[in-house]
């Protein structure tokens, strides 16, 4: 089975769970006066879930032929031929950034994200790299915090940032 039909199968399961919630569990706590109105919080989701299940089935059962691989797209059957490792590491780095942004503070987290990201992609001009990262982190922080007035804690948590 091709990838797009596997995805349709997974989406079908998700949509079924969504439909189950909309049809059977969501209205349990509905206030009595709400029950008399023609529209419930679950009405729109019910309509959607039916449409979604029909669309899933239509893809899954292959009513329409899918086109061949397109130019410029990535052939997922040969994923290991690409730089998969780098991509996964960068995703990992983004997760690390998300988790460390608060504890490390914006400046440190952003600076190291930019440095490690570029190193991973093969950048070896260390001085330029560090300078760019420091300037970028600093100026974005200044713009967001000082100019726009959106709070962004700059320093690690233990330093009161």
């Amino acid at each position, binding site marked *: 089975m*091709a*990838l*797009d039909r596997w*995805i*349709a199968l997974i*989406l079908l399961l998700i*949509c079924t769970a*969504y439909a189950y919630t909309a049809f059977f569990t969501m209205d349990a*706590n509905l206030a009595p006066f709400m029950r008399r*109105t*023609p*529209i419930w*919080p*679950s*009405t*729109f*989701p019910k309509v*959607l*879930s039916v*449409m*979604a299940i029909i*669309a*899933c089935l*239509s*893809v899954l059962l292959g*009513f*329409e*032929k*899918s086109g061949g691989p*397109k130019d410029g*797209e*990535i052939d*997922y059957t040969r994923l290991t031929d*690409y*730089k998969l490792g*780098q*991509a996964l590491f*960068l*995703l990992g780095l*983004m*997760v690390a*950034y*998300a*988790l460390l*942004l608060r504890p490390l503070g914006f400046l440190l987290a*952003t600076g190291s*994200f*930019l440095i490690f*990201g*570029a190193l991973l*992609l*093969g*950048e070896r001009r260390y001085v330029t790299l560090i300078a*760019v990262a420091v300037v970028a982190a600093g100026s*974005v922080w200044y713009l*967001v915090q000082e100019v*726009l*007035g*959106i*709070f962004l804690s700059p320093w690690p948590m233990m330093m009161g940032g």
Partner: protein
Amino acid sequence: MLEGLMIGLETAFSIKNILIVVGGCLIGTFIGMLPGLGPMSIIAIMIPVAISIGDASTALILLAGVYYGAIFGGSTSSILINAPGVASTVATSFDGYPLTRQGKAGKALTVAAVSSFAGGTIGAILLLFFAPALASVALLFNSPEYFGLMVVGLSAIAAFAGTGQISKALLMTVIGLMLATIGEGALFNAPRFTMGLMDLQSGLGFITLAMAMFALPEAIYLVLDPGRSKTEGGSNEIKDLRITRTEARQIAPVIGRQSIQGFLIGVLPGAGATIASFLGYAVERNIAPKEEQDQFGKGSLKGLAAPESANNAACTGSFVPLLTLGIPGSGTTAILLGALIALNVSPGPRLMIDEPQIFWAVIISMYLGNLILLILNLPLIPYIAKVLAVPRTFLIPFILFFTLMGAYIGQNNATELLLLVGLGVCATILRFADYPLAPLLIGFILGPMLENNFSRSMQLYDGFSFIYERPMTLGLLIFALFLIVLPSYRARRARLRAEGVADGD
């Protein structure tokens, strides 16, 4: 009217006000380039500055400059790095980014600037003449009609996104609508589908989803396949800045049509620039000749000009209900309404009579803002496009960082970043399997509006009867069905004919 026009010209063309417009346009353009900060947030940020100016006309002129600058800045990030920071520029990235990949970033930005200018200008002229009359037409649109209009918009998008594979596109649209139901809706005070998680209470953020659907998969593709970083021409030189005469002739009718259509959609309260840009794109694609139709989504200048002129014209159009009825038609105009009230101006039917200098100054300053934006940005385009000449070892971490920042600034919540990465991975896998991602995002954007109008119609008509009791709604819904059925019927017939199995007619 001429008298009013003169007052407006006099106010807008003072040295101080021209400087203010220039400043506003520059601020708007640069901040608008950061994904996550759309016109709405930038105007909100600029309000204290505007109020401290004191003079209502000057303050509005500043805000108008910022507004137009921000819209153009948003298009820039859509075109250059496929990161639409604002809903109304999502359609810009459909053809803008492919053009960048072909090494025509300069040309794409020029077309965007020119179309925005034309859209804004035509919009301002229409506003000048038709504002009072249009306000009464907009009142004819009620919830059922809005519901119908949005269904048409969604079907048009699904129909063009999934050429030959309409069920995938429809599935993505419905998934987008389903994602929009997560969190607390406006009409019901109950959280839905949050699975008990506090972080989902307020729903998914638009920026998070936009970055996850477009920018992140593109960045992952750039990492996976280093050859992609080079544009298809092989070099990253910025060339082809000029629009040739043939191209100008090609896009001129598109700009004309979409400026008018965009303006009319903008006049409807609640519809706004986003729907105008999507509908504009879909309409132009459908009426284009067959060979040009295939170019849409692969770098068609028409496909870029359509949403750009439509969204700017719609922004201008959205001032009609604001200035004549006092009803803000979009988030941005709602914030402007707040600013107006803070400046002791109350928009409404009396504004034109009581304070003509403000009404006319706003219109003239819109025109001026557009003109100045064009003059400022055309020479800047080669420098803006230089972003692409940054080596990929720097460019990719920066793109990733800006997507993260966009999601973070909006919500100030680190969980949002994890959500971004997770959704981004899902989006990449969907893209591997050739699922179109644009309908998902559009479904998500229109979802809350669609549901609110649906719910209101249900309440007004005590059930589904609004579908057949309102002729305009019924007409729109039938049109939507037609949009979906026709392409798949055509594709099916073409396939059968290609196989030589049947040709019944």
